[in-house]
């Protein structure tokens, strides 16, 4: 490993070192907010480095890349983690989390996500995914003495471990079939049509299972609602946004570059996309718990993103990245609002508890409306152009049926996004009087909402940026 490779990996190294430093420091100074803010600062610095420091080399040891695309992903995940840390400030105080440990694990997860979406070989991919998942195992079960949290952590651990096993076995099979760890070469090698092709295909199928677990595609989504419900709200937010985005981002270049090499995989993905959209939608309808609803909503959105992944190519990739940003903003915002509603008695999750909150907290309820309506794709919020780009790409790529199913799913989705809003605006006195949000939290969430509005009216800058950095 040369100095240049180290320089190219600077953002990830910053995240990892910052994580370790905070872990050690946290043992000496027991100040929760301090470490959370330091952690956020580290993540922001890493994002700035990734955005503005030109790496000396693009290919790092054949495992990672420092391309514009990879760095863009690093910026996204680092900023998400920074935002999650800021939004958790009051939350960690309420539930008496260890501030240093929490911040350290978050940064560790950021490093993992960043490595994951920068991976160009299976080894790099595996490492990144494991770093991320290990951090998440702990974060999900972070609330002491909370049975739901423990259950969620256990569920994620079991499913995660199984997925890891699938992934490892898949990599072994693909390596046997193609003789390479390089993602690109493995995808192209599959095309060659030699006797080992079935073996390779089996490997790819197992890989899809592993990925399906991670981004909760139907039928591998069963853990999602339980885990989202049990995990602390900010962690659920991270799970739903960056953790899934990183996996998708890792596979996007693969499907774009390999052309016809993965045609068979595309057929499977096609089926998965349809099933995911439909099952997710109908499962979301009867939910009366906002975190479970958001879990199923994230399942449905993964189905939409799968459309973009199938279309690949210029339009599809652009749509995917744009969608990912917009979806992450809105989902993070929604979980952020749930975080700020938490107090000593726990989080507000059931629609019954949400009733009448608008009179008490008009601003946060308005923000939650913006986030949920954006997820539903109602103009002039950014969710509209995100879906528009997606369906347009699907039509253009010859997948009109996927676009039509997507549109139907988003019509139905309006119903389950409106249900919590209706509860919020019911004119009843709120059952419980909750604390007021800290100004930093409000400011951050207002920032998210404003970004969603601006992207809804002027999507051009982000679209241009995304088109430039595409692999």
């Amino acid at each position, binding site marked *: 490993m040369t100095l240049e490779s180290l320089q190219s990996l600077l953002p990830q190294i910053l995240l990892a070192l910052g994580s370790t430093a905070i872990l050690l420091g946290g043992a000496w100074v027991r100040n929760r907010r301090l470490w959370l803010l330091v952690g956020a600062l580290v993540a922001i610095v890493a994002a700035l480095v990734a955005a503005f420091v030109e790496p000396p080399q693009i290919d790092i040891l054949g495992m990672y890349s420092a391309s514009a695309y990879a760095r863009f992903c690093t910026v996204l995940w680092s900023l998400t983690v920074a935002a999650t840390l800021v939004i958790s400030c009051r939350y960690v105080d309420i539930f008496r989390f260890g501030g240093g440990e929490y911040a350290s694990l978050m940064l560790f997860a950021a490093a993992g996500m960043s490595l994951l979406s920068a991976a160009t070989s299976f080894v790099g991919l595996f490492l990144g995914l494991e770093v991320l998942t290990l951090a998440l195992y702990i974060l999900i079960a972070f609330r002491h003495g909370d049975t739901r949290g423990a259950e969620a952590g256990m569920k994620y651990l079991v499913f995660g471990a199984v997925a890891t096993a699938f992934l490892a076995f898949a990599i072994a099979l693909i390596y046997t079939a193609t003789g390479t760890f390089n993602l690109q070469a493995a995808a192209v090698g599959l095309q060659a049509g030699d006797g080992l092709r079935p073996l390779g295909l089996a490997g790819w199928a197992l890989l899809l299972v592993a990925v399906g677990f991670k981004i909760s595609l139907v039928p591998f989504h069963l853990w999602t609602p339980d885990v989202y419900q049990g995990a602390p709200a900010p962690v659920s937010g991270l799970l739903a946004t960056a953790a899934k985005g990183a996996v998708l981002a890792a596979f996007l270049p693969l499907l774009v570059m390999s052309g016809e090499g993965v045609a068979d995989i595309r057929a499977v993905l096609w089926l998965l996309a349809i099933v995911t959209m439909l099952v997710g939608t109908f499962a979301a309808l009867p939910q009366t718990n906002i975190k479970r609803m958001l879990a199923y909503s994230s399942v449905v959105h993964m189905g939409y993103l799968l459309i973009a992944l199938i279309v690949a190519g210029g339009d599809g990739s652009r749509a995917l990245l744009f969608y990912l940003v917009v979806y992450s903003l809105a989902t993070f915002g929604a979980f952020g609002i749930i975080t700020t509603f938490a107090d000593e008695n726990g989080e507000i999750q059931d629609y019954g508890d949400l009733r009448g909150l608008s009179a008490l907290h008009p601003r946060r309820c308005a923000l939650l409306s913006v986030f949920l309506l954006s997820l539903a794709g109602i*103009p*002039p919020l950014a969710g509209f152009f995100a879906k*528009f780009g997606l369906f347009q790409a699907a*039509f253009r790529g010859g997948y009109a049926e996927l676009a039509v199913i997507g549109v139907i799913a988003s019509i139905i989705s309006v*119903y389950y996004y409106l249900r919590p809003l209706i509860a919020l*605006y019911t004119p009843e006195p709120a059952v419980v009087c909750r604390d007021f949000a800290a100004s930093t939290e409000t400011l951050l969430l207002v920032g998210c909402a404003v970004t969603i509005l601006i992207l809804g009216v002027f999507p*051009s800058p982000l*679209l*241009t940026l995304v088109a430039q950095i595409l692999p």
Partner: protein
Amino acid sequence: MAIDFPLLSFLLFTPLAGALVCLFIGVGNSVAPRWVALLTAGGVFVVSLLLCLQQPPTAGWLLYEDYRWIEQFGIRYTLGLDGISAVLILLTAFLQVLAVLVSWRQERAPGVYFALLLVLEMAAFGVLLALDLILFYLFWELMLIPMFFLIGVWGYQRRFQAAVKFFLYTLVGSLCLLLAVISLYLLHGDQTGTYTFALEALKQTELSTTQELVFFLCFMAAFAVKVPLFPFHSWLPDAHAEGPAAGSVDLAGLLLKTGVYGMIRFAFPLFPVAAQKTLPLLAGLALVGLFYAAWVAYQLVDIKRIVAFSSISHMGFVILGLAAWNQTAWEGSLLLMVNHAITTAGLFAVVAMIEQRTGTRSLDQLGGLWKSHPNMSAFFLLFCMASLGLPGLANFAGEILILIGVFTVKPLWAVIAVGGILFSATYTLRLVQGTLWGGNCEPHDKQDLHSREWLVLVPLAVLVVALGCYPQPVLDLLREPLSALLLVGGMP
């Protein structure tokens, strides 16, 4: 024709600016927002009035604006004003002033309430001005959000069900529209190499008969729900019955009109062949709706619901006029639309006043208001007479033009439609009889109209009489653009 000052954008964004001011000023201040809203709506009305008066009625665009917007998708910010949009914009701006006045005493979160009203006005303007299909679609959807919250937060007991029903119904139609727009855009792009959503360019797209029919039906799904055309009407009575008074004025005056506007501006010119093939179907649905809604209105006891169903019945008449596909009938349709907006706004306003004074909207409990509240009852009677098509009052002019136009093409349709007028007479007379005469109810508020209510009702009444006797200025504005649109489509 481009002018230096972007007057259309100014018109479009003034309500938005007013809405933002309302929102910020409304925190902890319950009086200021309504004045801001009134000033904004009034100012917009004056501007649009000047706009209409100063322009000569020609066939082309009176005003036109075109800017780059989202180049990646070929979306442009294109606005155009012709006689048709001018008339409807004037109507919208006028009704919006009244809507603000009607809800003057809004106690619950007035800042947000008036901001939503102004956003609704902006969205309606956008729909009436946009010439880029995506821009149009954005404003079309934007109309939903303020209306959803107006009904859902400020409405009556079952407001949430009504709001959700309204939202889902219209959204299903809208998404059909969106799918058709995207497909049309891609087809056009594949044919010509330029991907654009501009209305004029898309009109040139070569389409097979089937494609045209499918696209046309998708467009019509969105517009027919908004109109609402039978059998897509069931959201409207609920939305009216559960929504606040200003919401009803806006629903009847603004939202329903955009459906018809969408048909003549987009659906018919883009797919003329398919449109003419489906005219008999359209006429059939319009006639069924005309009778069905009138029949239902005759059975109901809730006076607000009766007015809502009368609205559906009248819109059936409007659509029948469009289905005749000739100059006279189209002029009649648009005129009736304007007149209907004014009479219905008047009816909803008086219904709200009756409810304030008696605490009920049920015909069983109402009666005898003529004695206790003579002035209010006189206005109610006037609007009711206009609504049933009494010659000399507003609706008659539109209806007679439609009947003449339809009779020249399909005499049978016209004959059936005349029966519809009879029907509307029956339910309207029942409405009048049940509220104004008969057994006395006990209104808890004995006061007849006060000054603000006079201010709402007098302009409406003046317009009802004026448009009934002399509709020529409106027709002048409509004539050229309509004949241009008809030429594009050709005669059936």
